[in-house]
């Protein structure tokens, strides 16, 4: 790995994103629209809105970055740029971290815009600070990037890549505590939920929701998410083969 190559790869990925104005607009506008929708759905129930909107601030960047990354990586494979990069001094880690950093930055912008709207226009109320919410949202985005990189190795076409979204994301969203509190799930279901990284980032967000100061549980959850990111990136690195049949 080299800092120069990592920096120029990150810049290149951000430039590609910048040329795609429509994707940027969708990235910024969709969470705003959905949060606004939630606001009106729960107009009479302030507490529910606070609970659901907070969790959604974590889920949006996860889903979005998972999709964007798996398609971007698939394109690198199918257009031959990956094959070519592997004949240059680029290292696998330059590429993996390049995607992680570039899309992590994009997610930070997205999370800031969405959270600002939720707090100041829709009256979202959390005991903890806005900064922690954004931190957890970015961790979720990086989780999405890492899982997206990994899953793209198992897709041959963009159609297949998109199909991994329901496979990977929806079970996590169903079981993360958004619909049924994790404490009330049947034992085996709770076990499955415990094995899913999104459950921990949602729990971390809920901690920020209820306590003014960052709690030990929140840091532990964040560490678990970071651990999963590292494992997923390491597995992703093994799927990046310089030599192909």
């Amino acid at each position, binding site marked *: 790995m080299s800092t*120069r*190559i990592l920096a*120029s*790869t990150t*810049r*290149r990925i951000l*430039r*590609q994103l910048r*040329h*795609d104005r429509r994707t940027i607009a969708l990235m910024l506008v969709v969470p705003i629209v959905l949060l606004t929708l939630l606001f009106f759905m729960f107009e009479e129930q302030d507490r529910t809105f606070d609970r659901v909107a907070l969790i959604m601030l974590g889920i949006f960047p996860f889903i979005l970055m998972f999709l964007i990354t798996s398609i971007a990586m698939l394109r690198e494979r199918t*257009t*031959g*740029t990956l*094959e*070519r990069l*592997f*004949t*240059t*001094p*680029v290292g696998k880690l330059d590429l993996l971290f390049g995607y992680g950093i570039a899309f992590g930055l994009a997610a930070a912008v997205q999370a800031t815009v969405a959270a600002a709207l939720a707090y100041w226009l829709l009256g979202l109320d959390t005991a903890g600070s806005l900064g922690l919410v954004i931190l957890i949202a970015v961790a979720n985005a990086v989780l999405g990037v890492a899982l997206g990189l990994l899953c793209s190795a198992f897709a041959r076409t963009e159609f297949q890549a998109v199909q991994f979204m329901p496979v990977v994301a929806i079970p996590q969203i169903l079981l993360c505590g958004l619909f049924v509190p994790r404490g009330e799930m049947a034992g085996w279901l709770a076990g499955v939920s415990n094995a899913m990284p999104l459950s921990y980032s949602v729990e971390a967000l809920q901690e920020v929701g209820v306590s003014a100061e960052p709690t030990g549980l929140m840091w532990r959850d964040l560490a678990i998410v970071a651990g999963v990111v590292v494992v997923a990136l390491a597995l992703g690195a093994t799927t990046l083969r*310089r*030599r*192909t*049949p």
Partner: protein
Amino acid sequence: MDTAVEVRELVIRRGGREVLHGISAQIQRGVITGLLGPSGSGKTTMMRAIVGVQVVRSGRVTVLGRPAGSPALRRTIGYLTQSPSVYADLTVRENVRYFASLYGIASDDADQTIRDVGLADQARQLVGTLSGGQHSRASLACALVSRPELLVLDEPTVGQDPVLRDELWKRFRQLADDGATLLVSSHVMDEANRCDRLLLIREGEIIADDTPAAVKAAAGTDDLDQAFLTLVRNRTEEGS
């Protein structure tokens, strides 16, 4: 004779079929070697093995004294894939500058390479909006920009007009004169005549490895097109 690439008994299987059947060849340093053969004969596969991105069944490929694919080689080779491999959602300049940056090469040199391939007017255009021939040249620029010691070019002039083809070949000749080694695959016999050496490959076997003049003499004709047909057919008859 100074060897840049040595291929020994190279066997490659792709998609469950053996594609290269134990070929051996040497590529000389500082000259242009043409790699010719019918479609599907294994040219791209052999090039992929030389640049180190092809899984090899058995045999050995040595490039500039090291096993193909060694990390140290990645600074010294340039590879042009057969279908253009550049980022469609970046401009020509952004693409070439990105590939230049991987070698620590300045943006000015990248801009010079863009002019060299005749894309000065398109430098700010998105690659996705270029014409077919321009698209290939954008990809070529990304391979040339690092001034590699060994250039492996898979059909670099396909889709270019005769004037541009001539200019590109003059540039290849200049690079060889400056000491670079070039391996260029092609279907155009007029281009084969501009090579110093020819490697003829048919169904995964090398059927000739010589200068263009010697290849023509061996086939008993003055016309390389004819020589090529004769050599390919002779082998077919021997085989049956």
